[in-house]
């Protein structure tokens, strides 16, 4: 070995040993900064008196008290509960039903599945725009049904502060129920055919076979579907903006639109940060136990 070669060999050895870490570390650093440091910054700001500009003077829980004394926040929370509950229920009922029906080895299954799932490829803004037109109080469904002879039919949920949140549910279920169908269909296909055959030999009818044998076997799919839907619901922002704009007034506000309004329209950074922290806490309360059990389950 020549002397000139030694530093090169040493460099190669060094790279061999450390290259994976060298490649991963900038990406990991990006995650530390843009996820963890940013979260820390937002949490810190939520304890300060920041208004239009960040102000680093700590004021304790004042911003949280402010959020919790804003009537609009209560509307947002109430909408979140109503929307999340009905959205999950609607998607689960339709999704599970369609998955079971599609599981009957029918012809055209591929084409039908494609039709059920295509709304998932669309932006919530596109979905919202479409349903805003369909649910339009003068020219939409109302006029259609009146044209069928039901002169007194009225359907103005979109502009009715009491009912507008349900239009968001209607559009949301239309978009996301196919997703649940796909998850459950995959789950049903993973059930051993032998078990189904054995049940049939025992004389169990199709309804009983599904209700007492197959569906209980894929219980984890129920859990993950509900978690995914809850996660989607808490983050829902686009659909509300496109369909109702949070209105009439702020009747269809959700925590996500509340946070956006305070951050970018009213420029009350501290209040916006406090509401964002509460959204994070809610998501974490759902996701952390779920992920923990998932990771533990797959490690076995």
């Amino acid at each position, binding site marked *: 070995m020549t002397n000139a070669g030694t530093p090169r060999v040493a460099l190669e050895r060094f790279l061999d040993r450390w290259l994976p870490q060298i490649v991963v570390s900038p990406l990991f650093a990006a995650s530390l900064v843009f996820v963890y440091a940013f979260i820390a910054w937002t949490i810190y700001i939520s304890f300060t008196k920041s208004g239009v500009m960040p102000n680093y003077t700590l004021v304790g829980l004042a911003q949280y008290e402010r959020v919790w004394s804003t009537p609009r926040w209560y509307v947002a929370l109430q909408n979140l509960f109503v929307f999340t509950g009905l959205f999950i229920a609607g998607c689960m009922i339709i999704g599970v039903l369609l998955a079971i029906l599609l599981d009957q080895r029918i012809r055209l299954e591929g084409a039908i599945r494609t039709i059920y799932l*295509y709304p998932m490829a669309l*932006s919530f803004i596109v979905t919202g725009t479409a349903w805003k037109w369909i649910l339009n109080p003068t020219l939409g469904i109302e006029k259609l049904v009146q044209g069928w002879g039901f002169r007194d039919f009225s359907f103005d949920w979109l502009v009715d502060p009491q009912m507008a949140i349900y239009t968001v549910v209607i559009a949301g279920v239309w978009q996301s129920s196919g997703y649940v169908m796909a998850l459950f269909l995959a789950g049903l296909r993973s059930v051993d055919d032998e078990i189904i055959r054995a049940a049939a030999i025992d004389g169990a009818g199709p309804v009983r076979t599904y209700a007492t044998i197959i569906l209980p076997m894929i219980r984890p799919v129920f859990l993950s579907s509900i978690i995914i839907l809850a996660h989607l619901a808490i983050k829902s922002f686009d659909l509300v903006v496109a369909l109702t704009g949070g209105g009439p007034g702020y009747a269809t506000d959700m925590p996500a639109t509340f946070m956006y309004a305070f951050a970018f329209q009213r420029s009350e950074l501290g209040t916006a940060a406090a509401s964002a922290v509460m959204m994070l806490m809610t998501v974490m309360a759902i996701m952390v136990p779920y992920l923990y059990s998932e990771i533990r389950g797959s490690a076995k």
Partner: protein
Amino acid sequence: MSQAQSGIVRRQGPRQIALRILLFAVLGLFCLYYLIPLAVMISTSLKSLDEIRTGSLISLPHEISLDAWSKAWSSACVGVRCTGLEPYMWNSFLMVVPAVLISTFLGAINGYALTKWRFPGANVIFALMLFGAFIPFQIVLLPMARTLGYFGLAGSVYGLVFVHTVYGLAFTTLFFRNFFVSVSDGIVQAAKIDGAGFFPIFFKLMLPMALPTIVVSVIWQFTQIWNDFLFGIAFTVGDSNPVTVALNNIVATSTGVKEYNVDMAAAIIAGLPTLLVYVLAGSYFVRGLSAGAVKG
């Protein structure tokens, strides 16, 4: 496998045939449920405003007119600028192509390094990075807006490329890590013994094997980033808006007569790229969705 042997409804009798007809009727009804909104959009976009006012939601256009489409593409008003969707479609493409390619590439190399060159702490690093996929993005909006402003990227398409790359990384890493975990370590060991290093093994051996995962990741990222609205509306202004924000502005423009046909044409145009990808590569999209089951 023949029809008679599988599924739950197996024996053939009048009752079974009736059940089968019922089954198809229900499936068909749900096809209508999902397709009618799309049909209404298309049909409305082809009508004139007069016909929209006189006709009904589901009536077909008497005279097909493409005026709404050309207006949506080139002259509809997005806020105060009456340029149609065209420039915003380009913004979205300029945003989505680099963001998809960079986040997929970085996710691939990250997943490879974390699984095939397992070093102490690799799993912890993965778990910490994965966390980024679950946060509600509202928690990073404020600091990111300030950071983009600081680097002069606020209100630009480049800023969005950066944001989507950073927050897409957790997810692309998840895709590739799950794939590379299933690849036998023996292949990499043999290549190492042959003297191949970190990058040659990645480019010549691992990437070609990961082709299906690359497709899943590209399609997933394309759909997510194209459809994004939150980052678009929070971090861009006016003429650098992506198409989802522009569409929302067209629809929300409240001056003058409400042109539902233009709204519908604009919505279809904005949804067409992801819809096409879905029709062409649906099975990869579904794989992304089920991998995304962990994320949602």
